[in-house]
């Protein structure tokens, strides 16, 4: 089970990173959301996976590690705030700049060729 779990975390991270590297703001927001799933799962896993071990006293025989859970709980809520801020910022940028590229302007084709030298002449 741990192997599968770790695979999922890795896959979500990879998907998140790939989308974060895209050039349009909405893809970046989706990528960030995927990344925060991965991060939350990862943090949660640092308390190890346990079955039937809710961190509630008197409910089950063993008790899972409550600390990562508490951290992840607030992380989920803050993650929502971050996603919201990012997406509204993207909307605002689109409204003010007329496009939804992360750099605020759509790169010219020539710029694309020059990517290798970083736009330096």
């Amino acid at each position, binding site marked *: *089970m*741990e192997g599968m779990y*770790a*695979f*999922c*975390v*890795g896959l*979500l*991270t*990879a*998907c998140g*990173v790939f*989308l974060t*590297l*895209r050039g*349009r*703001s*909405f*893809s970046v927001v*989706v990528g960030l*959301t995927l990344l925060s*799933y991965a991060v*939350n799962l990862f943090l*949660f896993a640092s*308390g*190890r996976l346990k*079955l039937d*071990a*809710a*961190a*509630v*006293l*008197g*409910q*089950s025989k063993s*008790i*899972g*590690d*409550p*600390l990562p*859970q508490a951290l*992840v*709980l*607030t992380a*989920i*809520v*803050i*993650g*929502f*705030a971050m996603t*919201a801020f990012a997406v*509204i910022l993207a*909307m*605002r940028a*689109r*409204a003010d700049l007329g496009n939804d590229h992360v*750099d605020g302007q759509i*790169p010219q084709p020539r710029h694309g060729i020059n990517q290798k030298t*970083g*736009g330096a002449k």
Partner: protein
Amino acid sequence: MNSLLWLPFLPLLGTFVPLLTARYSRTACAFMTAVLPAVTLFLILSHASDIFSGKHFFASVPWVPAIGLELAFRLDGLSLLFSILILGIGLLVILYARYYLSAQDSMGKFYAYLILFMFAMLGVVLSDNLIQLWFFWELTSISSFLLISFWGHKSEARKGARMALTVTGAGGLALLAGLLLLGHTVGSYSLQTVLDSGDLIKASASYPIITVLILLGAFTKSAQFPFHFWLPNAMAAPTPVSAYLHSATMVKAGIFLMARFYPSLAGTDLWFLLVSLTGLATFLTGAYVALFQHDLKGLLANSTISHLGLITLLLGMGTDLAAVAAIFHVINHAIFKASLFMAAGIIDHESGSRDMRQLNGLWKYMPYTATLAMVAASSMAGVPLLNGFLSKEMFFTETLHQASLGSLSWMIPVLATLGGVFSVAYSMRFIHDVFFNGEPINLPKTPHEPPRYMRVPVEILVALCLMVGIFPTMIVGNLLYSAASAVLNGDVPHYSLAIWHGFTYPLLMSFIAMTGGLIIYTNRQHFFKFHAQFPTSDSKLVFERVMQTLASKAHKFISFTENGSLQRYIFFTLLLAIVMTTVPLLQLNTTAGQRPEIPVDALSITCVVLLCVAGVATVIWHRRRLIALLTLSVVGLIVSLAFAKFSAPDLALTQLSVEVVTVILLILALFFLPQKTPKESSPRRVVRDLGLAAFVGGTVGTICYALMTRPLDTISTFFTENSKTGGGGTNIVNVILVDFRGFDTLGEITVLGIAALGIYKLIARMRLFMPSSDDKGRPWSEDKYPLLLAVISQSLLPLALLVSAYIFLRGHNMPGGGFIAGLITSVAIIQQYIAHGVDWIKQRLKLDYQIMIGSGIGIATLSGLGSWLFSRPFLTSWFDYFYLPVIGKFELASAMMFDLGVFLTVVGATMLILANLGQLTTSERATQKEHE
């Protein structure tokens, strides 16, 4: 002695005096400016007799003792000598500048800079802490920059100032590195400790690096070859500045530094080679170049370089007597060079030119000044009965005793004599060319004697030249002895300051220098012709070119790393992060640990497959945004299932409700954004990003797996044990949130509130792109609010709120709590918005979400402050059990108040975001009044 603590700051206070008094007459301003330095000088001199009898004074105030930071001053022989030079010559320069500056120059500004420099210089020589010394060292660089660029309208002044700052500033950085390393080696930044640990330093492995770095600082400051080029260019400064900075103080700071660290660093072969050879090279080049200058100040500047080289050479020789000679020459050079600069300033001021090809025969016009200048110049040449002669004799004596170059040691006295020859030659030129040698040529003004008091500083200095030259022991004997004792950190060898030592080799060398100098000067035409054959190189141009090349290289580098592309930044950041993470992973032998794994079941496999498919589908269809959102929400759902499966019911509930809110938010936002992403990444870019993504994902997955399969050593035992007894709740996660780590949560909801307000602000003034149809060109549906949805959601509302209240109340003991209840409430309200529209809600639900956020954070804070009433720390919780007839036993805890605050903030923040986004297209949209 406490006065040492505030004494160095008197001049700093004095910086403001000229600025305040500049509105009064020039004389008043100069007089007022001089008061504080004069008081400082007086106070320092009052300690002189104690210091002469061998006492040292220390004063310090600790600042950050753990890292060796303190305010520490010391007053010993060396500090005393330099303080007298700084303050004494400083006072003379103040008097001189009163007459030198013209009416157009801002006198207040000039004096302010000058006194600031005086303060910095005084700080350098009085510091007893390495870091503090460096601080003042850099302050001298900055204040000298201000002084050199005082006539900022002149291009050469700006360029000269920049060059001086660049060279000395770069040296200052090297010095900082050297001092830090030195302090680290010794284990203390206290100067006294460093001076007492000479053997330890010399034995340490970092000694060569320390020495080279500190010497770099000293050489750049004291204009040693090959860093000497900034000094002639700094001559663009007003002459009082040159007389002060470039003869007696600033350029002597490097010499001071070498003398200060003499006990710690000197005496090794490395020191000898670096210091004495640099000094020798500087001595010779300076003397040679000085002869060919046509600018009066250029000649003096190069002669200064040469004399600084001489002092450096003496310090490098490593013998005790050489160190004494070095200190003696510091005094003598300061006296005659300051007076020469002042004389040059007078000539410039009263004749309008500094060019020696125009200045001739001034003897007739200003005989008095000429006499003074001639005495000073003779001292520079080393004529007997003047102070320059004495130290030069000592210098020649020491070169004769030098044996460090083995069988080549004879070269040092020979080269020293050669330098002496040129010194005599350029001094001759200064005297003969300017005051005799025919008639002036095309001078802008008819030269005349300067105002009476402008001559006074020169007179005082020239009188000192003579007095020291004739009665050396009486005038400077004590000062020299105590300074030398400070440099040598102990015993001073026997030396004699007599004028006449009999017919000795040094006397012969002086004689050769005199005769040789006369011969060279009389045959100077040939030398000038010879010198003219060399291509002239302007150090300003070379420097400028180097600087521009550096700047353009730096610019290229920056435009490569910072080209404004967010994608590039993220790529580099992730790349760096992954490199840093991979290195420790390479040292991990096995991925899997010892902990037994949970067996796999069919349901889990199904979920994993779904998650993987949804995740990959999100990436594949990310350009069709609505579909990507749908697959994204599948991922979110499975994540919440995973939390539920692995015993985290709180997380599952939170994730589920956040998921709902997030997807609604993203769909709303998508309405205002393009529905599709154009295809614009090049194949190479896609491959590159895929590669990085796979690598990052693989690494994170590996760490996750390695982590999970290793036994857990948790710190949570404390929380588990104290949750019920200390926090009064059985749901440990909730108790951690509202009690143990309540302060964290308070911070967290504050952040949530701020984010929501930020979003509100962003929305408030947004111009809208309102698509009139969907991406396929179909118009929006007329049918606004589906009746079925309206009816169902309306009847669901009480139920949802009831569930929310239940979740909230049981949160302390069972899965639930303020966060989750808040999210559920938000979802319930949002559903009403979706089903009925903004107008309908507005009429029925009068909630101000901003007030809700504020009151939420307020309640949470107050519940924390409440514990102060019982003299407990912030956020200490209280709980007890009560009994009511119908309900039975129940618990009340102050943590519930805190959780209520969390609840309100979450509802307020979520609703502020969603409701405002949702009503953007309606008449209810948030607007902002224009302030202007």
